[in-house]
């Protein structure tokens, strides 16, 4: 391949690449046919030993890629993208509501503890599924976790106070024996 042939091929290739880019928004079938037809047009109009000037003239006669693209039919471009509203993630809502409810049920200690544990287990299962509203699920789990911490603090507080009461009672008994 001579240097002139390679320059000539490069000129044609560059023009066709520009055209392909310019036709990016065109109707797909029309884009493919236009590109193929213009390639054929250049093959037809240029002799095998075409000079660089002849290639330049053939490309100039075809016109700028932008002008050809301007005459093409635009491809389908939706005027707006319909975004479906996120369906309510009811399981996440239940986890959040359960977590918050467990906080309010702290005075009823066993019930609050059971509910908080159930919420934490349900939250872990849901987060592992990687579906639904993760923020809401995590919120419910945080509330359930707080409930368990508060219940633990209350339980420890009661245990200590009962222990103190028990010690005091023992001392009182021993004083009476004395």
């Amino acid at each position, binding site marked *: 391949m001579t240097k002139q042939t390679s320059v000539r091929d490069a000129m044609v290739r560059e023009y066709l690449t520009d055209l392909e880019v310019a036709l990016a928004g065109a109707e797909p079938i029309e884009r493919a046919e236009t590109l193929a*037809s213009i390639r*054929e*047009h250049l093959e037809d109009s240029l002799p095998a030993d075409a000079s660089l000037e002849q290639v330049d003239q053939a490309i100039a006669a*075809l016109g700028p890629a932008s002008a050809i693209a301007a005459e093409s*039919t635009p491809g389908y471009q939706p005027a707006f993208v319909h975004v479906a509203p996120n369906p309510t993630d009811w399981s996440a809502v239940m986890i959040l509501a359960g977590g918050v409810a467990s906080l309010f049920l702290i005075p009823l200690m066993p019930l609050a503890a059971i509910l908080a544990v159930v919420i934490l287990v349900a939250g872990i299962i849901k987060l592992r599924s990687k579906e639904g509203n993760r923020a809401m699920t995590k919120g419910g789990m945080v509330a359930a976790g707080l409930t368990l911490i508060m219940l633990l603090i209350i339980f420890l507080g009661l245990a200590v106070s009962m222990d103190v009461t028990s010690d005091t009672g023992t001392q009182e008994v021993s004083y009476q024996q004395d």
Partner: protein
Amino acid sequence: MSAEAEAVLTQVRKGVLEYCVLALLRSGPAYGLELATRLGSRQVLLGNEGTLYPLLSRLRRQELVETTWQESESGPPRRYYQLTPAGHAALQTFTDVWGPFVQDIESVLSEVHND
């Protein structure tokens, strides 16, 4: 040619050039370069040869023309375009309305205002 004149021509060609292509095919099938050369030999019908090809693709999809491949003596096979019966009918309709349309335009353009 001035940019204004070119802009006017671009607008006027829309909707007309495709019927000129159909008219050229009335005499028989022709390939792309041949059509481009015949249209380009007129003064103002075809701005850039390349703009012919999106138009030919549209005509084919509208089934006003159909394509066939034929061997060429001087190179690779050529894609020939030829009129379909629907293309003949569309060209006839255009021909029927074109005469009165041109008369009206010439009449309006030559009208002298006496205001």
